[in-house]
């Protein structure tokens, strides 16, 4: 607290606030200040090159009534929920499974990690070609179930996106659950075994409750992360076919950087920010994430 320069040996208080300042400043400049700017820009007309001109609430009226943006918001929510529902059980089960000490499970974990090494752009490029109805995997394997126009059919494209996102992100969450599961004291299982609890009961009454912080951490990252699936969808489908995969960040990008309506795009950004903050606050309150103390809780 004291900023006066005292000899180190006699200083009683903690380290000075200044030490946290570089991180705070850098973060503020590119994350907090932009929040203010984006609100300002949402009340202007700007093509991205000249100077923004005040436009009152025009953008807001348009953003809030536009069916495209409303649809994008709906798709974003749908993508968030669906991604969570698909990825959480999958990563939890896989993570607990590879937490076992058998050698083959450790080996499995090594391979599971592979998608994490590939950039989002590359993953999108891979699946764009892999899912191609003429030259992709499904066509040549002659499996009617797999041989669909995954990315060209408005009904299917959204689910194809959910699948590719899971392919990309399940590895990371598996790793979180693996680390979490390895921390559960064996004594708990021992006691349960003595009490005659079966494997399912042990999973339900020990593994799951013990992993609750990991579930919270993983879910928080997943839910907040789902607002940021821009790159993948951008390269994979470009938001199409039609508007079938035009999620909110994509709607914002297309409005801002392709139609050069930065003001309107800023209004969409604000919606995105508010959604992100509300979600996180809800998760914080709901889970007590900010009261966590230990390393285990954090990771």
């Amino acid at each position, binding site marked *: 607290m004291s900023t006066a320069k005292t000899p180190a040996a006699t*200083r009683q208080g903690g380290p000075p*606030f200044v030490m946290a300042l*570089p*991180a705070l400043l850098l973060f503020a400049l590119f994350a907090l200040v932009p929040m203010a700017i984006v609100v300002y820009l949402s009340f202007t007309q700007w093509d991205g090159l000249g100077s923004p001109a005040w436009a009152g609430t025009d953008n807001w009226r348009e953003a809030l009534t536009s069916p495209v943006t409303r649809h994008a918001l709906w798709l974003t929510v749908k993508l968030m929920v669906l991604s969570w529902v698909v990825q959480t059980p999958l990563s939890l089960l896989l993570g607990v499974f590879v937490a076992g000490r058998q050698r083959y499970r450790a080996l499995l974990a090594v391979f599971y990690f592979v998608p994490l090494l590939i950039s989002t752009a590359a993953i999108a490029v891979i699946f764009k070609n892999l899912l191609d109805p003429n030259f992709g*995997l499904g066509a040549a394997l002659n499996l009617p179930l797999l041989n669909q126009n995954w990315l060209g059919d408005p009904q299917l494209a959204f689910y194809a996106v959910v699948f590719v996102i899971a392919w990309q992100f399940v590895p990371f969450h598996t790793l979180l659950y693996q680390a979490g599961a390895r921390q559960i004291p*064996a004594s708990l299982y021992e006691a349960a075994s003595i009490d005659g609890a079966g494997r399912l009961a042990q999973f339900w009454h020990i593994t799951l409750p*013990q992993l609750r912080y990991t579930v919270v951490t993983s879910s928080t990252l997943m839910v907040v992360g789902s*607002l940021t699936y821009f790159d993948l969808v951008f390269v994979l489908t470009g938001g199409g076919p039609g508007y079938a995969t035009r999620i909110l960040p994509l709607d914002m990008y297309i409005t801002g950087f392709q139609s050069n309506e930065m003001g309107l795009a800023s209004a969409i950004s604000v919606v995105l920010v508010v959604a992100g903050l509300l979600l996180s606050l809800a998760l914080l309150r709901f889970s007590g994430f900010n009261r966590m103390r230990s390393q285990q809780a954090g990771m």
Partner: protein
Amino acid sequence: MSALSHAPTTDSQTRPAPMTAGTPGRLARLRRTNPLGALGGALWLVIVLVPVYWVLVTSLRTREGFFDANPLALPTSPTLANYRLVWDNGFTHYLLNSALVTVGATLLTLAVSFLAAYAIVRGTSRALRWAFSVFLLGLAIPLQATIIPVYYLIAKAQMYDTLLAIVLPSAAFAIPLTVIILVNFLRDIPDELYESMRADGAGHWRMLLNLALPLSRPALITVTIYDALNVWNGFLFPLILTQSPDKRVLPLFVWSFQGEFTINIPAILAAVVLSTLPILALYVLGRRQLIGGLTAGFGK
């Protein structure tokens, strides 16, 4: 906030459970067979590896070979011509750009985050607790939502279309999670160690460099890998903050390459493989570090 406390121990103490972790019991539990799990695990392995395998074999095919071969068969006449094509399209230049951006942003993130994490853990002031809350909330800010104002700021600062324009916001967005992970780790360093150093007359900088830094090595390795991967793979900031081909980083290169060579799928996939190789090499070398880093400090 005792240094050695962590959630499971605390929980087992509040429950009527045995306090000792018996080694035989642990082994017995961990080595049970689980056929259903094995089946599921194998299925996911197939889902993960088939696309990867497909990319590898296809990248070795000739353009003609691609259209008439079974996509999963080994190429009849494997060729490296696709890799040659990618290489000749300026690959090394983009590789260098990516390396510069990644190293710059990661070092910057680590330096400022470590200082902040140390101050937050050791500090007592209200301002520092407030700073920690800022970072916690910061996790919630979607990077996408800031691209227009970040673009605005970068353009105003005359940094548009430079590598620095990618480094600064990339580092800024890596800070919150990095600080939080480091804080969680630093909290487990016992107070007594600091006290004994303080008794020897050490100030905060010496404690930070000679005690906190070496002891948090595993956490630092974890966040380094995590942050570096994120920056290396970053697409959006390069997309909106740079323009000229010679400022491209690898993900942008892969994207533009597939736009240019739309029908030459083997070449596109060769670009994918080449752009992934550096990370794959690091993973092979540093896997133990990464897994160890993620799990280190749990069960001292």
